[in-house]
């Protein structure tokens, strides 16, 4: 018997999960019916035009077994001291996860949702306008996840770590879902690591929903390190109330095809977001960054700063839209994308876009792509650095600019080390 392909499996209503409280069933129904009317993305869709999804959708559907996923996670060196919540093969592993105190709430998502008798205000909130079919799929079929609620009083410098491991073994599909809530004035640093081993590969379809109450402040690092033929897809949806701020640093290295779809709703006056991204891609790796920032309230501010370093036949996309609504007077938005191409066959698609429906606004965007600058290279060589060392220094400097800007102490060090190793391989 041949296994059902992911495409057929998910299009079947039977893949709609039944777990959860009564109010969740209609939410899942709605997600499923919207997904049915949309279907899977094709190359005709603007946001997916450069992605070849056949390898993902036509792969046989396989879900890792919980026991195998747990065993696989146990072989990893996990920190004992860190505040950490662990997923493997899409399963949330409470045995390997921290039991927090000090008012911090961390629960399996199903347990958290089951304790609610009415729909949570934030949960799957914008289903009606959700354009990403993979978010809809996650919504109707997820069974594993985590809810992290950071209390008002929280101003702890200890980072909160989310760890997503692939379960090894046969290629599998994982659909974790994480809701992060920062209560009024809370300040937190979250590091989310998606680690793919050198095994046979995996497909992840993760959804993150992040809610910032008034004056809350979040630093979120997403560190995606893929050593094997993995397809990490992650959609993040941020909702920001007045005076809150979200800073995100995405670091993406390796893998087969990565799709990160980030949407930020600046809903409260003075809310700010700073989205920084860095991808280091060699071989045939591909990373597609889709960003949408909706300025819906006055005095909101957004900054986007994304860089890609591409070698061999790697490809990357920066597809970003800043949308300033009519009410968002005195808002300020900037988009900047720069790409360093280390080979003639590497390819980048840079598409920063602005839509502005109010006059009183500051907005600008820019994009720059190219090989190593010959003047810079000559400058370093004229000081005695050999071409390899000079190229490494330039590439690292190019990448460092993102890390310096992002100011993400909980992840900056490990990203710096990883990118140096990777760039070293590229210039060798």
């Amino acid at each position, binding site marked *: 018997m041949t296994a059902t392909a992911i495409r057929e499996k998910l299009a079947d209503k039977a893949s709609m999960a039944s777990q959860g409280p009564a109010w969740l069933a209609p939410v899942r129904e709605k997600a499923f019916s919207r997904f049915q009317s949309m279907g899977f993305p094709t190359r005709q869709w603007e946001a997916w035009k450069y992605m070849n999804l056949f390898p993902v959708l036509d792969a046989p559907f396989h879900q890792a077994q919980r026991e195998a996923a747990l065993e696989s996670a146990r072989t990893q060196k996990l920190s004992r001291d860190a505040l950490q919540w662990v997923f493997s093969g899409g399963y949330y592993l409470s045995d390997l996860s921290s039991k927090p105190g000090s008012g911090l709430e961390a629960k399996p998502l199903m347990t958290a949702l089951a304790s609610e008798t009415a729909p949570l205000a934030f949960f799957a909130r914008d289903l009606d306008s959700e354009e990403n079919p993979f978010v809809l799929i996650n919504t109707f079929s997820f069974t594993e996840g985590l809810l992290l609620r950071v209390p008002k009083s929280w101003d702890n410098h200890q980072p909160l770590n989310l760890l997503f491991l692939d379960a090894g073994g046969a290629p599998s599909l994982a659909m974790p879902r994480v809701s992060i809530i920062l209560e009024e004035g809370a300040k937190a640093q979250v590091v989310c690591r998606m680690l793919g081993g050198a095994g046979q590969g995996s497909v992840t379809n993760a959804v993150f929903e992040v809610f910032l109450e008034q004056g809350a402040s979040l630093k979120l690092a997403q560190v995606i390190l893929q050593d094997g033929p993995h397809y990490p897809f992650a959609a993040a949806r941020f909702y920001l109330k007045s005076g809150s701020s979200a800073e995100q640093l995405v670091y993406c290295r390796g893998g087969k095809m990565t799709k990160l779809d980030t949407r930020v709703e600046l809903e409260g006056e003075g809310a700010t977001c700073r989205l920084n991204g860095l991808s280091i891609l060699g071989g045939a790796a591909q990373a597609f960054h889709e960003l949408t920032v909706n300025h819906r309230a006055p005095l909101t501010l957004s900054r986007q700063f994304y860089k890609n370093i591409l070698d061999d036949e790697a490809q990357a996309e920066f597809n970003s839209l800043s949308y300033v609504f009519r009410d968002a007077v005195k808002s300020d938005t900037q988009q900047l994308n720069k790409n360093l191409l280390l080979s003639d066959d590497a390819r980048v698609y840079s598409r920063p876009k602005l839509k502005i429906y109010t006059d009183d606004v500051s907005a600008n965007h820019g994009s720059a792509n190219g090989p190593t600058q010959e003047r810079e290279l*000559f400058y*370093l*060589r004229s*000081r005695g*650095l050999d071409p390899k060392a000079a190229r490494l*220094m330039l590439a*690292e400097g190019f990448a460092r*600019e993102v890390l310096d800007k992002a100011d993400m102490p909980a992840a900056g060090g490990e990203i710096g080390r990883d990118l140096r190793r990777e760039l070293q391989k590229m210039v060798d």
Partner: protein
Amino acid sequence: MLKIKQLKARIAGNDILKGIDLEVKAGEVHAIMGPNGSGKSTLAKVLAGDPVAEVTGGEVLFEGKNLMELPPEERALAGVFMAFQYPVEIPGVNNAAFLRMAYNAKRKAQKKDEVDPLEFDAILQEKRKVVEIPEDFLNRSVNQGFSGGEKKRNEILQMAVLEPRLAVLDETDSGLDVDALRIVATGVTRLKRPDNAMILVTHYQRLLNYIVPDYVHILSGGRIVRSGGKDLALEVEEKGYDWLTEGQGLRK
């Protein structure tokens, strides 16, 4: 130390240097002056190995080695240093880390042990006084956001760290106000030693008020049309270049 014989070079298909002869000995300071487009900066670029300049003839011997056969980094390691007319900005590369890399590349070439960041910091603290560079310069990205004067000072800081045998200063005085010029020129003077040599490429005489040259050469139309002592520069200051170039029939 340096012997240039009948050097010819072009940039972007245009013949710029049309036969330069020059000899520089240890302990000497040579000034290369000339009107715009005379080839002064091209000469500096050729010596440093800038790929924009293509050598089409002649010979350059540096301490007996054929300099033109060496890639830029080997020229640097052999002791040739060019201070850029337009120093390049390198975002994301820390100035101190860059200087240490360059310093260690030289140490390695000399078969000496590399120095660690702590040891190098002590060296750097000494050297930065040469050009009165504030400490925060060292932790910024190389030349990024520096003013014109700061960039030139950073060039001289690199020169102080690398201690070249031959320094070629390409219009280091251009774009500097009086104070910046004094700082840069004083810094360069401090670096002068009996065993090194300098070539100052400049349009104006004012730099030579601070750094007194042993020889002055006037370049025009890609050739040296007059050589003399420091008084030649004063004469140029007074009379301009026309009297030198017109008489040679080299000016259009």
